[in-house]
């Protein structure tokens, strides 16, 4: 991997994220790869807070905080303005949570990607609305407790597959990444940076506060999500060519679930059916990757 500036930091210490915040790590890795010729749009999410209150900012790049559902649209405007000024070089990045991406911001994101706007959209996924106190989003996984899926009403619906939704747009580049695999994450960010058109990176970012686990578990849990194929690492080019970046060694989902408070109500039967769903999704992905290989 060719990453020149690994030692460079574009984020200051002193951000106000919770201890163990996966989203803080994700930002740090992303910016190492993208460098400081980057303008970042941040719609409402935990990062609206983490970045610091007026007049401070933890990021050493220009940041435009924006309304919750506007990530795709505000970036389109920033891009258009820079283009008309003759600056086609600056990387324009939207940095949004799963709520701002899968739910309320989905329309603006879909619009921007359909127009093939020249920007990178990064979704850091902590699988709920964390800023407002752990409410469910369409990214919240099957089985999870949140404050709006409490007690016996734990979420009995699957997580929306956002990458596939974007692949359906024939987006030039879509990739998943994880804070537990920083080299893979930074390689993908660099690759996205060197491409044109709409690019999407989906980063799994654990949240000790919302998931009910000790802060030192953040990276371990993120690694387990990949190892169990709950969150596979892969990338898709032009909506056609799938590459799976990590081949798991057959870990079962049980331990991943048992380590997090948000899943503690699940029975053995629940976990068995979840294992089936995870296997089914993984096989589906393998088929897509395989089919793509055959036709390429």
């Amino acid at each position, binding site marked *: 991997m060719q990453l020149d500036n690994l030692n460079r930091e574009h984020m200051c210490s002193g951000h106000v994220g919770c201890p163990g915040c996966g989203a803080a790590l994700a930002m740090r890795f992303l910016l190492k790869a993208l460098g400081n010729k980057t303008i970042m*749009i941040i719609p409402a999410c935990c990062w609206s807070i983490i970045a610091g209150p007026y007049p401070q900012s933890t990021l050493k790049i*220009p*940041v*435009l905080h*924006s309304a919750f559902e*506007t990530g795709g649209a505000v970036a*389109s*405007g920033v891009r258009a*303005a820079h283009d*008309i000024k003759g600056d086609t070089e600056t990387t324009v990045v939207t940095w949004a949570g799963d709520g701002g991406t899968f739910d309320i911001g989905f329309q603006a994101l879909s619009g921007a990607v359909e127009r093939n706007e020249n920007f990178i959209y990064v979704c850091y996924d902590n699988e709920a609305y964390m800023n407002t106190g752990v409410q469910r989003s369409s990214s919240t996984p099957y089985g999870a407790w949140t404050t709006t899926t409490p007690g016996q009403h734990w979420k009995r619906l699957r997580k929306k597959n956002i990458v596939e939704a974007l692949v359906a747009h024939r987006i030039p580049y879509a990739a998943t990444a994880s804070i537990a695999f920083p080299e893979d994450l930074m390689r993908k960010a660099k690759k996205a940076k060197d491409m044109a058109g709409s690019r999407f990176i989906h980063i799994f970012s654990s949240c000790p506060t919302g998931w009910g686990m000790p802060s030192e578990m953040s990276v371990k849990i993120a690694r387990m999500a990949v190892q169990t194929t709950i969150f596979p690492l892969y990338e898709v080019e032009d909506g056609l060519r799938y590459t799976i970046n990590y081949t798991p060694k057959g870990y079962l989902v049980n331990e991943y679930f048992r380590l997090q408070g948000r899943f503690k109500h699940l029975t053995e039967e629940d976990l068995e059916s979840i294992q089936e769903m995870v296997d089914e999704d993984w096989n589906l992905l393998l088929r897509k990757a395989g089919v793509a290989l055959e036709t390429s």
Partner: protein
Amino acid sequence: MRHVLEGSHAVSEAVRLARAQVISAYPITPQTHIVEQLSEYCANGTLNARFLRVESEHSALAALIGAASSGVRTFTATSSQGLALMHELLHWASGARLPIVMAQVNRAMAPGWNIWADQTDSLAQRDTGWVQFYCENGQEVLDTTIQAFRLAEWVNLPVMVNLDAFFLSHTYEPVDVPDQKSVDSFLPPYKPRFQLDLANPCAFNQLAPPNIYMEMRHNIQMAMDEAFTFFEQMEEEFGTILGRRHGAVEAIRCDDAEVILITSGTVTSTSRQVVAKLREKGEKVGLLKIKLFRPFPLNLLRELTKPASKIAVIDRNFSFGASGIFAQEVKAALCNFPGHPPVYGYVAGLGGRDITTEVIEDIYWLTKNSTAPENESSWVGLREVDHAVGQS
């Protein structure tokens, strides 16, 4: 040069002459002609701008928020439902102090679906921090749109130029279209006070705790005050270069008037006729047109209505549970002035119903012949319908 122009195209010509750099819009009747023309200009190179064909009005304004934060001149146009959808971002644009210019075609809010003239759409946005103008004819639309950029960029506030659906947006009139050179000398290229800048990385619109939020809001109000002062100076300059003035308000025969009619938008033109006719008959009637709604021209209004013994406000809009909105504003402007004339509120022409010369004359006589206002507002020209809603 004088051209016969549709009201919508008076806007498009102004935006072309203003050399807007990023335009973003979503279609809605009766705004479409404005943006179709501009998209044509962008496509054929007449205008060197990016035209973003976004997927909603919400995104149209969001995109301009991004573009204006990057330091370029921006424009959008919408109407009724589209404006309502933008509501959250109207606050955002003013709070972020972005000089975005919008043409807003006054159209009724649904349900039922109604695409005709009604000002409730934009007046419902009065507290969003936008400067608001209401135009009477094609020439005023063109001039005001050019001025809007100058004003917006001077005070760092967004500006909304309102024009009545169809009566103005789709009506052809002779309009003087100035040459590019004159407009350039009135409106130089935009020099942003702040913008997203790699050389000077800043965070915009971040968390603003109670210790600073209030001062930020007060700054917006100071900018509104400044907008009022600057408007006069700007009209002076515009007049010198382009030979026309319209005024924040216009008083027609108010000096000796006993009854002053207050109007905004195209009703003003019809009212001019009525006033001329009544004057011929010896009636002491005047007309006050309010063009600038935000900032509200309090002092001008107080001064100009002093001679009158009665004021009649004609509202093509309504605030449910209260009254016509211009009437509210006029009352609020006068209430601290002891001995001010009583304010009669009339609601007329909602959803594009004609406000004819007869309607306006009726309003005059109703006001003249009454001893005191009986209600907050009288609805003029209501048809006989079954009002027994909710009764058994």
